[in-house]
């Protein structure tokens, strides 16, 4: 039923811009078309240098889709474009950067390789030091290319960095039957649910028990193909998204749950996996535990609604995360004054954007206001002032009380 509700009737199809998940041959074809069109314009009777028209990844181009029946909302990008031009003074370098990344990706695809963003950064740094000076610049140029060719970053042959980790009551196995298949269709609509008994037909395939992975948990691969192929089994009752790190005190032994973290701002791979968990285990509520500060809430919202920066892809992986903590009542009741730190200017900036965002519900906005008014922030770890096992008690209480927004 949930899947049906997200059908095109409610989806405002004509407004949505998305990046296709397509096989390497199709991506190469798109790049070739781009090059040919550029050369055609250059060699025509009325020659011109084509501009690059990229879907804007700005708040002004973002839209909100509100699921009417499920209550899910997510952000997507619409048809507003920004232009990179060779001849306009402050756009020349960014124009050339897009072509340089295009060249790299084309070669990666021809050689049937996959690289991480970090590897790509070093390659570009050596090749064109005048144009690329930081990882951030490379990442943004990659997003430009995604916006130009309208294909996902993963389709370009670029793997997300693996920053996230997962732990808890979860068994994972790479599914042999999906080896070598290409992801063609929009994953939001194509959930494939594997029957329980089919999953462990290959006894020689390694089964990973995330509850025995150690305190750092199981590292989430940056390879989305691999993540898609994972078979999953669980007896958890909750999925808990944690901001920074997984608890060392085996929370999941006392509360049957799966813990997942991106260790900071959510990367696509972690979001992808969380989304897979949601689809595979639709009855498990997803709860979020973040620091009490605007940045923490921002992280939760990224899992929940998606992001603008990767708006052409991220909308697919939004899941209905509920805000467990830390919230203002927790702060008032549980965190002593000494454990609070002042808000940084950065936090205030983020708070401002959150308040201005149309997708954020009022209850969230009230919390943000409270943050700003108090001028204080608190980390999850502050709960430990009550004892090392306090976190478990805190979570348990919250869950029982269904105290989440």
């Amino acid at each position: 039923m949930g899947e049906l509700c997200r059908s095109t009737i409610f989806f405002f199809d004509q407004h949505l811009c998305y990046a296709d998940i397509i096989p390497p041959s199709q991506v190469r074809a798109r790049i070739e078309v781009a090059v040919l069109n550029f050369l055609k314009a250059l060699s025509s009777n009325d020659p011109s240098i084509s501009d690059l028209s990229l879907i804007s990844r700005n708040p002004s181009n973002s839209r909100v889709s509100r699921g009417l029946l499920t209550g899910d909302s997510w952000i997507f990008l619409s048809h507003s474009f920004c232009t990179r031009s060779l001849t306009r003074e402050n756009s020349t370098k960014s124009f050339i950067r897009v072509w340089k990344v295009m060249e790299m990706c084309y070669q990666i695809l021809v050689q049937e390789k996959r690289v991480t963003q970090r590897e790509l950064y070093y390659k570009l740094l050596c090749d064109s030091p005048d144009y690329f000076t930081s990882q951030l610049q490379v990442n943004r140029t990659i997003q430009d290319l995604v916006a130009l060719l309208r294909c996902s970053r993963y389709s370009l042959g670029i793997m997300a960095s693996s920053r996230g980790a997962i732990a808890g009551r979860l068994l994972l196995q790479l599914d042999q039957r999906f080896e070598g298949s290409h992801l063609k269709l929009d994953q939001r609509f194509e959930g494939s649910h594997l029957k329980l008994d089919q999953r462990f037909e290959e006894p020689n395939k390694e089964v990973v028990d995330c509850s025995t992975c150690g305190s750092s948990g199981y590292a989430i691969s940056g390879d989305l193909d691999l993540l898609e192929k994972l078979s999953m089994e669980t007896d958890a009752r909750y999925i808990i998204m944690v901001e920074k790190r997984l608890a060392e005190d085996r929370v999941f032994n006392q509360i049957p749950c799966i813990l997942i973290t991106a260790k900071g701002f959510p990367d696509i791979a972690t979001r992808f996996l969380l989304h897979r968990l949601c689809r595979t285990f639709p009855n498990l509520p997803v709860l979020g535990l973040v620091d009490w500060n605007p940045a923490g809430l921002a992280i939760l919202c990224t899992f929940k609604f998606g992001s603008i920066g990767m708006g052409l892809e991220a909308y697919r992986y939004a899941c209905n995360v509920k805000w467990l903590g830390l919230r203002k009542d927790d702060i008032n009741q549980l965190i002593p004054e000494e454990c609070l730190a002042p808000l940084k200017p950065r936090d205030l900036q983020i708070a401002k954007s959150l308040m201005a965002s149309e997708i954020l519900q009022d209850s969230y906005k009230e919390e943000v206001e409270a943050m700003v008014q108090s001028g204080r922030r608190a980390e999850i770890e502050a709960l430990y002032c009550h004892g090392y096992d306090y976190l478990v008690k805190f979570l348990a209480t919250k869950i029982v009380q269904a105290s989440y927004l």
Partner: protein
Amino acid sequence: MEIEISSVKMLYKHLIFLAVQRCRMSDDLCRLTVKLTSFSHRFGLPLVRISGDFSLSLSPSLCVTVFSDTGVGSKLEEYQYLKYRDDLVLANQWDGMISLATTSVSDSEIHNLNLNLKESNSAGRLTKLPSTTKNGVKFSGTEVSVSISKSLDDLLAEVTCFLQKFFMAFTQMILVKIPKVVMELLVGGDDLLGTQTESRIVTIEGSSVYSPVESIKCLEVGLKDYVRKHHTCLSIGENLKVGTGVANSSGSSHGNSQVVEAVVIINEISELFPSSCMREQDTRTEILYFKDFVHCSVAQSSLDALTSINWKSYGLALRSVADHDDCVILEWENLPPHFRIHIAIHCYHRQYPSLPDRNLARKAVKCALDDLKENNQGVLLSTRELKMCDYALDLAKTLARLILSSNDLNFQEECCSLLGVQSQEVNPDNVGNCIREKIISVIGLNDRNSQKHKEAPSFLFEDDCFRKEDFMDEDYQEGEEAYISWDM
């Protein structure tokens, strides 16, 4: 408008100027002759020296110069604003006397006069002498004589350079309504025996060859000739890059419209030439300035115009503008060693006289610079344009590498055929160069057309859902954090 004569050269300039104007006014073909004759003293000092190569070298102490023209008769008002400067050097050379013989077509006699410029009282300046009868023959003309106490060689040395420039302007005399003027320079002297010695005629600058053409064309041809002759050891045919510009005023209340013409020539000297051939001063630009078809010193308004031009947009940096007595020198910063710039400016009224307009001069020179740029690729590029050439190179290399890394031969073939690269010549350099040249030519075209109209650029992909465009130029801000701003 008083003009103070402070040197012999200046005197000559003005006398020729006046003669030229008289020729312009005439409807007929005119001749203008400048004759320098040296006179030895009849008695006393030995004046003939025989040098080793058996040439006679005279050392007279007097030179008489006669400026004669067959233009309209002289009006004495022409001379009333000339003033004699009380200068010791000048006083030693010239006594301030001008002998004049003039007649108009309608006159029945030739008027002979003496003009004493030293005399400040206007009544005492002019002395009328007995007229000469014309015996019923109808003609017009003027003969002006001055006596200079200087050796012929010294005098020639002083005036030759100036006369060279002056001759340059003569190619401009060929206008639709103004007839040809033939000019000759005669140099001679009497020896003790009273016979004429050598008579040199300095070459007439092709005045008989050209049919009536536009004045600007003549200025262009004149400057080209001048450049070639001036740099004799360097001229190797047509490697001159030329730009011309003309600016007109809409005309004053008298309906007297003013015209300013400018010609800019750039020659890049081949590096094969020995550096001894190139002189230090060649890297500076002397402005050749003409007013009403006569070479003269640069008007202040034109000087202002030159300093106000945005030379940076042509990739040039002006260090200084030096205004010497009779010429203006532009000095440049960081001019490439083999680069030479020559500029000629001509201001004139459709009717004489004229006062040059600064805006017109500026417009004309700018026009000439733009014209030169448009017709010669790669010249006078501003810093931005040079940078764009670098960018074009980087982009071209990137595209070439992309094309050649493909394992789809159809794609490669299609790209190469679009570029016009033959299949046997396909390599990264050729493909890259081809793309680069195309990009640069489009950029150059865009720069020139940018003032005319803005065309919508083409896009790489056609998009039906194209709704609105946001021409934001985002340049990324640097930051090491994983997320810069919460991007909801």
